[in-house]
């Protein structure tokens, strides 16, 4: 990993009574994929806008590649590509024309803009729609065109605000592949802000958890997970047949188990250590068949949730861990580790 390319010190923004971002100290190294995670309204977009010099911070400063984001916004915008969360294009221009226009704004000649636009359209898989009006593009196509648009200026740093919002699973998979390519093959630095944890987890080198304007945790996913385990909090999800009172008592008797709560058709077992072997044994002794056993804590969902609880903020969306709770919820998908 290279030198820090994005750096903020005590970055704060206040809108009237609302403290959108508070004392953000962030350092992102060159070539890194960094995920800024947090619920809606946590201040992620405000942070990205401050990094681009589009919003003036109330306190603190942000630097990208040695340029002050507030004082030298033009220099910053030359090397930073920004994909807004609701990216839009001129509906009467074709996809290609939209890209060529962006190229012109970046000081490229028409010939260079054109050939670059064509190449980028191929890269994002939109060559077939290059001559179609952008107004007729679907949400997923617009998002891909947005990525091509960001790449028109050949940026060192790419900031994406909620890149996976409103895209189907297949589209998300392609997007994540592309993000990985941008980082690994092109050596660009990426900053993703998202509330969709599962997707970000796949692709980020490091994540920062952002709640109510504050960064409450920052590190690799492994680091964050270990940090939590050290706190002595394990969560096990168990589904067995039959799930009767006898089994419950047997499980409660295992040393280390603190609490057993029914959650839907399974139980959540809170313990102070890894109790999986004991649980399997106990179930086998009772003659109960284990249908699913899942240690939670290793994935971002859980890390996120636990940090969230630790911060004393419980999002309502978060209360229910079912994936069906989709609308505006915290997750789209849920990885289940089945044993």
């Amino acid at each position, binding site marked *: 990993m290279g030198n820090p390319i994005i750096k903020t010190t005590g970055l704060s923004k206040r809108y009237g009574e609302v403290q959108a971002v508070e004392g953000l100290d962030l350092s992102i190294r060159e070539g890194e994929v960094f995920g800024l995670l947090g619920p809606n309204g946590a201040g992620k*977009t*405000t942070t990205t*806008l401050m990094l*681009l010099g*589009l*919003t003036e911070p109330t306190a603190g400063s942000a630097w990208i590649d040695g340029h002050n984001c507030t004082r030298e916004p*033009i*220099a910053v*915008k*030359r090397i*930073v*590509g*920004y994909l*807004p969360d*609701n*990216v*839009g*294009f*001129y*509906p*009467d221009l074709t996809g290609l024309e939209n890209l060529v*226009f*962006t190229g*012109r*704004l*970046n*000081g*490229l*000649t028409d010939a*260079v803009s054109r*050939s*670059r636009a064509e*190449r980028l359209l*191929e*890269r*994002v*898989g939109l060559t077939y729609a290059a001559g179609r009006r952008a107004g007729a593009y679907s949400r997923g196509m617009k998002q891909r065109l*947005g990525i091509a*648009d960001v790449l028109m*200026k*050949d940026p060192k740093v790419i900031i994406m605000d909620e890149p996976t919002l409103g895209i189907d699973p297949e589209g998300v998979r*392609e997007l994540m*592949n*592309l993000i990985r*390519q941008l980082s690994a*093959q*092109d050596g660009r630095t990426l900053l993703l802000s998202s509330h969709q944890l599962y997707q970000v987890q796949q692709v980020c080198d490091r994540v920062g958890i952002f709640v109510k304007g504050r960064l409450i945790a920052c590190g690799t996913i492994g680091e964050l997970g270990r940090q939590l385990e050290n706190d002595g909090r394990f969560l096990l999800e168990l589904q067995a047949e039959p799930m009767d009172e006898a089994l419950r008592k047997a499980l409660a008797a295992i040393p280390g188990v603190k609490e057993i709560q029914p959650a839907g058709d399974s139980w959540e077992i809170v313990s102070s250590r890894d109790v999986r072997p004991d649980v399997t044994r106990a179930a086998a002794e009772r003659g109960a068949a284990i249908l699913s056993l899942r240690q939670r804590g290793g994935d971002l969902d859980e890390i996120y949730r636990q940090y969230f609880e630790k911060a004393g903020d419980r999002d309502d969306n978060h209360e229910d861990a079912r994936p069906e709770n989709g609308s505006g919820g915290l997750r789209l998908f849920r990885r289940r580790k089945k044993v």
Partner: protein
Amino acid sequence: MLARKTAPEDSASSGGEKKYESGMAALFRKELSDHLNSRRFYLMFALLLLATTASLAGGISSIVSSGGGDYVYLELFTTGSAYIYSFATFLAFLGPLAGIALGFDAVNNERSLGTLNRLVSQPIYRDSIINAKFLAGFAALGVMIFALGLYVCGVGIITLGLPPQAEEIFRILTFLLLTWVYTAFWLGLSILFSVLYRHAATAALCAIAIWLFLSLFMSLVAGGVANLLYPTDGIQGFFNTMSNYQLNLALNRISPYYLFSEAATTILSPSVRSIGVVTTSQLTGAVAGYLPFGQSLLLIWPHLVGMIALTMAAFACAYISFMRQEIRA
């Protein structure tokens, strides 16, 4: 999805000197081509063309029946008939609509399309966005107005069979310039509303309301206020007449519609020798004749400057509010 790393032409261009300040030119080009390709522009143009043709038909028949004066071309612009307004009157009425049509969704449309975010994250100065929008609208209005003016002249040459005199050409060009500035004021005003209001419809309604007020009701308001402050009945009325008239005129001149009408009449009719009140003693010994072009221009100079100032003020407000606005939706 194939990954291709930087191709040779790419590195060549990034190695060379990039002209970042060309953002303004690129924006202007796009805005202007948007205007010239828009249905709205065609609609406005067709409306004005229709009005012009109708007024020309009326004007020509009046001129032919009266035999025409010394400045026939100018009469083409100012003469209507019993049934139809003159070209100058039509422009005074419909010109603002053209300006409003080109500007009322300039900024809020970018916002609702989500293109504004993308635009401001490019390495261009923020003000070049609004400058380009205004200049492109201004250029489109220029195309429209000069095309109409030349159309009137062309029809005049064909039907009357006379070439215009140099004096007439100057006057016509000045008139068209005046019209251009006049419509630019409305363009600036509608851009201001497009910055202030998120919905294009609200912005358009506001601009149209102001247009109607200044064009139709300002004279009533001016008359009312003047009569209230300087009543003209009774003995005192004799003393108030002058103040009443001057206040009335001053209030009316707030409206660009009035300014334009007054200036257009003066520049297109060399027989208009003065604007405002002239006393009998001032007229004593004056020889009735036409005013040369330079003198007419002198008469309307304050009007022209006033309209330019109004336009600048409208655009300055739009500029300032755009620069201070939060970009996030």
